[in-house]
C-alpha cells in the first residue's frame, strides 16, 4: 500500500516536471492546479450533477449548499481581483441568448443521463468509471461539433454581455452576487428535509479547496476555471489529424482559436487543467485501499445512449458558453449574468433529465453500485 501511494505521488510529480520542461512554468502550475481539482473532486466526492439530483429526488440540499459556498468564496476574492487587474485577468463573461439558454437546458438534462457534468465526466473517466469514459469520448466529439455551429446558435439572438459589476459597480456586483447566492441557498434550505441542509465537514473542506484552486487558476491562467474549450480543442485536433480542413470554419479560423489549434495542446490552459483533473481523479481512486466497484454494466443500447448523452453534453455546453464549471461556477463567481441564466435553465433541464435517466439506466442488465457524480 505504501509503495503504491509513493508511486502515485511520484507519478504526479513526474507529470508536473515533464510539463514544466516541455511547456514552461505556467503550464506546469496549471497541471498542478488541475491535479488539485481532480484530487478534491474525486477524493472528497464533491460534484455538481449528483447534488442537483438528490435535491430534487431526496430533498437533500447539502451538496448544492457546498457548491454555493465554493462559488461565493471564489467570488469574494475573484471580483475584487478582476477589478484590481483588468489588464491581466478576464472573467468568464458571455452573452445571454436563445441558443445559450437552450444549450444550458439540454446540458442539464444530459448531465443527469450521463451521470456527470463537465468536470464530473472527466473525474468519472479518470477514476475508472466506464460510463464516464464513454461519455467523455462523446463529450469531446460533441463540444467540437458545437464549435462548427456556434455562430448559427448565437445568431438566433442574444443580449450584449452583461455583468453584475457592470450594472452595479465593483462593490455592488459582489454584493449582488453574494445576495443572490444566499437567496438560492435559502430556497434550497426551505425545500430540503431537516438534517439534509448543512453540508458535512468533508464538503466544507472541499468547497474551500475548490475555491482556492479556482482562484489559483484565475491568477495563473489569467482566466477562470473552464472545461469545455479544452475538450472541443481535443476534438478539433483529432478531426484535423483525420484530414478535416478546419481553416474553412468560422470558429477555428478566428485568430485566437486558430492559434490554439496550431499550437501545442500543452499551451492551452483549459487542456492543461483538464489533463491534471483527469490524472488527479485517477490518483485519488488508486490512493484508496480498494477501488470502488465497477460502475457499469449496460446493454449495447445503454452504451449507445451514454455515448449520445456525452455528445449532447459537449454540444450543448458549447452552445451555452460553458458547462457547470465554465458557465455556472466561473460565470457566477466572476459576475456574469449568463452564469445565473445558465443555472436556472440547466436546473430545469436537470429535472427533465432525471426522468430520461430512469429510462436509459433501465436498460442496465445487472444491478451496479452508483457513486455521486
Amino acid at each position, binding site marked *: 500500500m505504501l509503495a503504491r501511494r509513493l508511486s502515485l505521488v511520484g507519478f504526479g510529480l513526474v507529470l508536473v516536471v515533464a510539463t514544466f520542461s*516541455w*511547456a*514552461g*512554468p*505556467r503550464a506546469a*502550475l496549471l497541471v498542478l492546479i488541475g491535479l488539485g481539482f481532480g484530487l478534491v473532486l474525486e477524493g472528497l466526492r464533491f460534484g455538481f450533477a449528483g447534488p442537483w439530483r438528490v435535491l430534487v429526488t431526496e430533498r437533500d440540499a447539502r451538496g448544492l449548499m457546498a457548491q454555493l459556498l465554493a462559488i461565493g468564496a471564489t467570488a469574494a476574492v475573484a471580483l475584487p481581483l478582476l477589478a484590481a487587474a483588468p489588464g*491581466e*485577468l*478576464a472573467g*468568464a463573461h*458571455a452573452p445571454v441568448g436563445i441558443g445559450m439558454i437552450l444549450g444550458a437546458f439540454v446540458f442539464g438534462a444530459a448531465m443527469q443521463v450521463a451521470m456527470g457534468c463537465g468536470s464530473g465526466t472527466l473525474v468519472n*473517466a479518470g*477514476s*475508472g468509471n*466506464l460510463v464516464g*469514459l464513454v461519455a467523455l469520448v462523446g463529450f469531446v466529439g460533441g463540444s467540437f461539433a458545437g464549435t462548427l455551429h*456556434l*455562430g448559427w446558435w448565437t445568431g438566433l439572438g442574444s443580449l450584449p454581455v452583461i455583468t453584475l459589476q457592470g450594472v452595479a459597480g465593483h462593490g455592488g456586483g459582489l454584493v449582488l452576487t453574494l445576495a443572490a447566492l444566499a437567496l438560492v441557498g435559502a430556497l434550497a434550505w426551505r425545500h430540503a428535509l431537516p438534517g439534509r441542509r448543512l453540508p458535512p465537514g468533508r464538503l466544507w473542506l472541499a468547497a474551500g479547496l475548490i475555491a482556492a484552486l479556482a482562484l489559483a487558476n484565475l491568477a*495563473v491562467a*489569467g*482566466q*477562470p476555471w*473552464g472545461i469545455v*474549450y479544452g475538450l*472541443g*480543442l481535443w476534438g478539433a*485536433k*483529432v478531426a484535423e*489529424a483525420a484530414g478535416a480542413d478546419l481553416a474553412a470554419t468560422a470558429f477555428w479560423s478566428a485568430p*485566437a*482559436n486558430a492559434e*490554439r489549434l*496550431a*499550437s*501545442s*495542446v*500543452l499551451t492551452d*490552459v483549459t487542456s492543461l487543467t483538464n*489533463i491534471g483533473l*483527469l*490524472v488527479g481523479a*485517477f490518483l485519488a481512486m*488508486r490512493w484508496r485501499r480498494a*477501488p470502488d*466497484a*465497477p*460502475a*457499469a*454494466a*449496460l*446493454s*449495447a443500447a445503454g452504451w449507445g445512449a451514454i455515448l449520445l448523452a456525452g455528445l449532447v453534453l459537449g454540444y450543448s*455546453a*458549447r452552445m451555452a*458558453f*460553458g*458547462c457547470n464549471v465554465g*458557465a455556472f461556477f466561473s*460565470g457566477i463567481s466572476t459576475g456574469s449574468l449568463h452564469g445565473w441564466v445558465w443555472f436556472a435553465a440547466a436546473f430545469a433541464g436537470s429535472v427533465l433529465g432525471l426522468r430520461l435517466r430512469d429510462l436509459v439506466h433501465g436498460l442496465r442488465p*445487472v444491478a451496479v453500485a452508483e457513486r455521486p457524480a
Partner: protein
Amino acid sequence: MSAPVLSRPTVGLIALALVTALVALDALRAEPVDPFTVPPPSALGSGQAPSGAHCSAG
C-alpha cells in the same frame, strides 16, 4: 448483449492512455513550444493581457 465489466483501475488506465495518445499525436503535428517565449508563471502581476481561450468566449 453487454460489455465485460472492467475494473476501475483498468478503465482509469485506459483513460490515461487515451489522453497520452492525444498529447503524443499533437506533439507530432503542432508547432513545438519555444522555451524562450513561454509566458511567465502567473498572469497576475505579469503586465500581460490574458491570451488563453475560454468556453465563455465565442
